[in-house]
């Protein structure tokens, strides 16, 4: 008799744990041809709040890690991604309807991108910070600092490469993240959660909600303890405008949706979007 495979229950990733949605809801994740893949947890407003709470709690510790340490942890994540390469390829292939070769290229690009971002942890300050030549006798230094808790609506089409392209730039500088995965293609995001959970990344630094961004994102946009929002995966212009408007209530930093080719080198704008500049003055010679 043929062996029956052991299937997995797919859950959310909040504060380093894998809870079901408190709402008890799931939805069907289908492959590109409409066949059933799994029941994914459908996150609710309460799950989003819990995720923001976990991200806030993790911010102090993560943002004060040394850049070297953050880089090592991100690199460790890439190692774990590599270890799960086959699983990602099969999930990306099924979710996005790619050929095996195309899916492999997308997964490899995602892993390489994560490595690329890992290397930025201890270089970003040197590239975007400044010693400022002021005209008075003062020492004057501008350094970038993470802005805080970043909410992200992940790209809807590129289920893994797009996803890592929005998570890694936010966390490498010390922000913590709540990400709403691609609604129709959640499986690579859930597997990424399992990678993150085993990568020495402190719980709460990345929180992954599977579900409907049109339902969850408004709560994230209006949440007073979220400092920035990345609308990468918001395809509906009306919704994007509403989310931007809600973000004004506490002056969240907003990255607007735009046509992005995730396969090209991203540049540093996605990292700098979630940075503050702190300038410290001190008299010289007093």
């Amino acid at each position, binding site marked *: 008799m043929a062996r029956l495979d052991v299937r997995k229950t797919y859950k959310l990733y909040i504060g380093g744990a894998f809870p079901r949605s408190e709402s008890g809801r799931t939805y069907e994740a289908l492959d590109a041809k409409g066949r059933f893949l799994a029941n994914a947890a459908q996150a609710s407003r309460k799950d989003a709040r819990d995720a923001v709470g976990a991200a806030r709690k993790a911010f102090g510790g993560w943002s004060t890690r040394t850049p070297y340490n953050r880089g090592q942890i991100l690199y460790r994540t890439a190692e774990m991604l590599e270890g799960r390469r086959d699983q990602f390829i099969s999930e990306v292939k099924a979710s996005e309807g790619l050929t095996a070769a195309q899916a492999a290229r997308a997964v490899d690009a995602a892993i390489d991108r994560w490595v690329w971002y890992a290397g930025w942890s201890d270089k970003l300050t040197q590239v975007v910070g400044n010693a400022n030549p002021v005209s008075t006798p003062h020492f004057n230094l501008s350094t970038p600092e993470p802005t805080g808790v970043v909410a992200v609506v992940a790209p809807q089409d590129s289920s893994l490469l797009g996803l890592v392209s929005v998570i890694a730039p936010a966390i490498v500088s010390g922000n913590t993240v709540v990400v709403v995965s691609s609604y129709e293609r959640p499986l690579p995001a859930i597997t990424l959660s399992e990678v993150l959970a085993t990568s020495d990344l402190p719980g709460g630094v990345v929180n992954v909600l599977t579900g409907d961004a049109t339902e969850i994102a408004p709560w994230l946009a209006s949440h007073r303890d979220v400092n920035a929002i990345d609308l990468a995966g918001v395809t509906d212009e009306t919704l994007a405008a509403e989310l931007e408007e809600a973000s004004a209530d506490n002056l969240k930093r907003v990255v607007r949706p735009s046509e992005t080719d995730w396969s090209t080198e991203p540049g540093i704008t996605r990292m700098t979007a979630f940075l*503050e500049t702190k300038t410290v003055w001190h008299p010289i010679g007093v």
Partner: protein
Amino acid sequence: MADKPIFEYAPAPQSRSVVDIRSSYGLFIGGEFVEGASAASFKTISPATEEVLAEVTEANAEDVDRAVAAARRAYTRVWSRMPGAERAKYLYRIARIIAERAREFAVLESLDNGKPIKESRDADIPLVAQWFFYYAGWADKLAYAGLGTNPKAHGVAGQIIPWNFPLMMLAWKIAPALAAGNTVVLKPAETTPLTALLFAEVCQQADLPPGVVNIVTGAGATGQAIVEHPDVDKVAFTGSTDVGKAIARSVAGTRKKVTLELGGKAANIVFDDAPVDQAVDGIVNGIFFNQGHVCCAGSRLLVQESVYDELLDRLKRRMTTLRVGDPLDKNTDIGAINSAEQLARIRELSAIGDAEGAERWSPPCELPANGFWFAPTIFTGVTQAHRIAREEIFGPVLSVLTFRTPAEAVEKANNTPYGLSAGVWTEKGSRILSIANQLRAGVVWANTFNKFDPASPFGGYKESGYGREGGKPGLAAYLTEESN
């Protein structure tokens, strides 16, 4: 309390003769002064005397439309095509003309704003000239701004500035915008339009191509017309957090770029090992500079308990030497409150401080009979729950709180929705760096306060807004990385 000084100051008035104020002003659109589409106008007065200085045009949506069209034409036909090196030369010219006419600008600024001449003369106007000089040098070096080898301007920038540093805010907005290749429509505050209108003459003297700089006067409705104009690509605003939020809402769903410099409630933290005299001077400068009309003013003094009594004694003694009065007197330390409306707000919040049980103290000082005045004031016995410790007063009013440990100081300092600036006073270097690291604020002044420089980025965390002005980040706010 110190006794009255033995020697009285002799009056040292700055002559007004250097300034020639017209009885009425039009709008500066397309390189010349033009009449507004409607006959609406308003008066700008001297807050020190309530004397009417001039009649100013109230621009409506039609006027804004004309100004934006002029800016667009200038952008498309001239400014965006001009080599950076040529743009630079225009900005250098402007910097030089401002320096040449510095005294004229300083007197006009003090007349219209009410700030002491020694501040407009020694701080505001020199910084204005320097701001243009600094950004002039960037115009032909944009490839080094950190946005790739060929960064692009946004196009037409709509800029709205406040009344506390009228010409300085103009320079902060216009200099980087023009250096980056944008053209601008700028609205000065309704109570302080005169130096912006004089700046229009500087643009003419510099032969700046018509339409590169347009200045429209008016109040909130004029500003709103600028923000909402579909052909404005970039909005830059300095002012209150409430208006900043309204602007952020209004540009939602558009392609407009935005930078916002908003309110603050800065903590000025004094540790027990701080050099007391320097700290006292820094506290005074932090809250009484420009009558406290400073978004980054050190309006919450946090004093370590062990030095509280000594510090408060010395602070009060120092405050008795502050001279309040005629802004054009060169010995004046504190000038007039900018408007009747602002004076009413300062009085209202101070009355709330009384009602909530904080203890008010001001040095004995005689205030002029006419004009808008408020004596330098401190409130002691303030807790974090008091409204005077939470809301921006934007006047010469200091709230004093205490703390015991560095951790408590940081906690209290960060306990506000704002995050613009902060001060730290201690002789211990490691403590300065540790506290500065923990403060969620865009500018930290250690053993100094209220220092500004065009090479130094300025701007806030959290609800103090987004974007930076000054330095390379201030230039980047007007550029975009070239894509596709």
